[in-house]
């Protein structure tokens, strides 16, 4: 017994002597909040996957830090005057990580995969618009559209449009999801699910040899653990920092904190086909009884922006609209006009932990609405059940008021206005969970979609957003901010408003 104890003590002492191992010079450890799911861009549905995919894959058109569209694998492009075809002139001398050359055939293969029987989860970025793809010459490719689409380039810049090696997809099929092959600055090395994912530098990268040699992305679900890894130096970068820890971390001289305003708006939705929510005065009453400033100040400590529009300010196509006032007295008056002089009762549901402080916000709303005589019972469900509950068709749903968030992953306003509000998008077909139907609004959305001239597009974008501002079928509450932290030695981190944190060939660690 004594001998074993002595042995154990020696082992412990030896372990202590080494301490946290010295890491390779240009290796970065990135603490993510969740495991990625698919590493196949057309099938990737979560932010952790998209962030990794942005490093492995590249698109024809890229978003810059301000979400402007800039050349990616296509050096330039032309739109036909009728808006029915787009021609892309590709970068030469690019190859995939497996050696397959990148050319017009690879683009054609990718787009046809999106249109084909495999039905990737993001196929809807292509199927409604693209008729066919033509290879003009080895480095020129033309996409022929069924109908003009004002935001077509945004769909090409979407994370799902990262182009993978056709050879790898032919060999692996859907299993490409765990053995990704792209053209990006970093290539896939290994993935131990639930633990870590490793990327290595692509020495042959066309944009110059990347400065980082290795990226290890660790899955660290627990918020407190991510914060501690950052403080102890076990991670160079951590995402999704909890609001409570931010003031303390800001005081740490070794760390750089970066809060980015995202495109995500948290909102409250009503079943617009059901009484009393079918009455715009009732919805307005909820809106007037909502004190956004108090929520942003007290609950989010200023790390959010009050929203008056379901479209967040950094979204392409955003139209500034007057702030919604907070006026519980006027809310009461509107309720009385609508036939509820003694207030009303309703059911309200919110997810818990899906978005920052979602349930706490729902509790605050419940209190605020009470001032206007609105009594809501507040319920929650875990996420899978919540999604299922808010996807039931209009004749089966028992949801009255719900809380949800939406961020357009193509960074443009139509990806909000159409799926959330157009009358042909009622769940379960689309994502109009509120059963909103307004012919005037539908018409504006249809027109802005097909616009080939920007002025035409912008005019209808404005009209559509004004309708929503007036009718408040859902009440936008706030725009979220995403805070990441990293060691000051790490330079060139990209913290995109699309809630993606990733690196490119210029990211590096200073000595």
């Amino acid at each position, binding site marked *: 017994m004594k001998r074993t104890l002595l042995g154990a003590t020696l082992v412990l002492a030896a372990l202590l002597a080494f301490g946290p191992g010295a890491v390779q010079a240009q290796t970065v450890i990135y603490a993510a909040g969740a495991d990625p799911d698919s590493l196949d861009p057309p099938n990737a549905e979560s932010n952790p996957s998209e962030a990794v995919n942005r490093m492995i894959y590249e698109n024809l058109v890229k978003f810059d830090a301000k979400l402007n569209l800039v050349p990616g694998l296509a050096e330039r492009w032309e739109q036909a005057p009728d808006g029915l075809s787009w021609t892309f002139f590709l970068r030469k001398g690019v190859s995939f990580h497996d050696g397959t050359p990148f050319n017009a055939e690879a683009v054609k293969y990718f787009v046809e995969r999106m249109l084909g029987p495999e039905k990737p*989860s993001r196929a809807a970025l292509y199927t409604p618009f693209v008729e066919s793809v033509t290879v003009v010459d080895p480095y020129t490719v033309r996409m022929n559209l069924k109908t003009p689409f004002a935001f077509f380039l945004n769909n090409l810049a979407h994370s799902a449009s990262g182009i993978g090696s056709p050879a790898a997809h032919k060999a692996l099929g859907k299993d490409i999801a765990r053995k990704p092959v792209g053209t990006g600055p970093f290539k896939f090395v290994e993935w131990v699910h639930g633990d870590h994912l490793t990327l290595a530098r692509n020495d042959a990268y066309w944009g110059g040899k990347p400065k980082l040699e290795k990226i290890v992305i660790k899955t660290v679900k627990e918020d407190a653990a991510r914060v501690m890894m950052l403080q102890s130096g076990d991670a160079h970068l951590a995402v999704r920092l909890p609001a409570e820890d931010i003031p303390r971390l800001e005081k740490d001289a070794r760390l750089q904190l970066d809060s980015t305003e995202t495109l995500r708006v948290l909102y409250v939705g009503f079943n617009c086909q059901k009484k009393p929510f079918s009455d715009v005065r009732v919805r307005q009453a909820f809106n007037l009884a909502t004190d956004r400033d108090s929520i942003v100040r007290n609950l989010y400590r200023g790390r959010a922006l009050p929203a008056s529009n379901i479209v967040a300010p950094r979204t392409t196509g955003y139209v500034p609209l007057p702030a919604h006032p907070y006026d519980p007295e006027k809310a009461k008056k509107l309720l009385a006009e609508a036939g509820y002089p003694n207030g009303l009762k309703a059911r309200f549901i919110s997810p818990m932990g899906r978005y920052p402080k979602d349930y706490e916000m729902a509790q605050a709303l419940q209190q605020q609405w009470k001032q206007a005589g609105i009594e809501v019972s507040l319920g929650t469900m875990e996420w899978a059940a919540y999604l299922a509950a808010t996807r039931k068709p209009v004749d089966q749903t028992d949801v009255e008021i719900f809380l949800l968030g939406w961020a357009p992953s193509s960074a443009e306003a139509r990806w909000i206005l159409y799926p959330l509000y157009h009358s042909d998008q009622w769940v379960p077909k689309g994502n109009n969970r509120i059963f909103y139907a307004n012919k005037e609004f539908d018409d504006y959305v249809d027109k802005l979609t097909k616009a080939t001239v920007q002025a035409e597009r912008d005019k209808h974008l404005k009209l559509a957003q004004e309708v929503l501002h007036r009718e408040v079928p859902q009440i936008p509450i706030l725009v979220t901010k995403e805070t990441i932290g990293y060691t000051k030695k790490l330079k060139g981190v990209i913290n995109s408003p699309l809630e993606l944190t990733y690196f490119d060939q210029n990211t590096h660690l200073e000595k």
Partner: protein
Amino acid sequence: MIRYVVKRLMMLVPVLFGVTLVSFSLLQIVPGDPAVLLAGEDANPEFIEAVRKEYGFDQPLHVQYLRFVARAVQGDFGISIRNREPVIRLLLQRFSFTVQLSFLSILIAAAIGLVAGVVSATRQYSLFDHASMVGALLGISMPIFWLGLLLMLVFSVHLRWFPAGGSGELRHLILPAIALGAASAAVIARMTRASMLEVIRQDYIRTARANGLRETVVIYKHALKNAMIPVITVFGLEFGYMLGGAVLTETVFSLPGVGRLMVEGIFQRDYAVVQGAMLLVATTFVLVNLLTDIAYALFDPKIRYE
């Protein structure tokens, strides 16, 4: 003995069958659709249909169940709906990790628990006895996630002795093993103390002392061996639970074990993963119990299995 072991192993079949039936039914009762969940907020209905078809969720329930059982018998547990990895690979990866953590934890728990228990019993009502029993009470009452975060704060953030998270090397496992083993150490210490106190008062101990044997021989050879039966029971149970995955410890320290695999699988409605993990955990638990029973015979020759 061999016949006994074979008989016990045969009992695994109905147990595992029951486990598949229960886990399958529970997953069906819980609301939520794996395909809808995978598609997220901005779901595309065609994709949802395609996923349902690919994974067979569009089939009647009994067909789904029988298909699962038929494949499982052949060692095929399907693929994860999340990352398309074969479930069997995920299970092996995660289980090998859980085994490492469990061994280290139970080692720490046994070392601390046995020493504290024996010393407390031989010096009943001494300062050490009181101190170690208070320590045991703390060990049982401290929530694992709290202890884990505290250990991390002290030893990773302030002292920088151990890493705050991650896996792959032994040094990553020390803090989690302490956090996970603390409660077991406490239970083992209390059980050892109680059992030793009973044995020490037996006639044969007095006889051994009267024969002039050294006190250490009396305590460790004659008393401890006989006091081990209830301790082994506790030991087996604790080890069985550890091998079933330690979701809190794994979450706090970001470790890829079976516990997190199963819990995350439930939240993601990853049916294949949950069912596979349930089978694995049930099998392990049954086997650990069997080993515990065999261990009784080693410590107490009076126990024989016919």
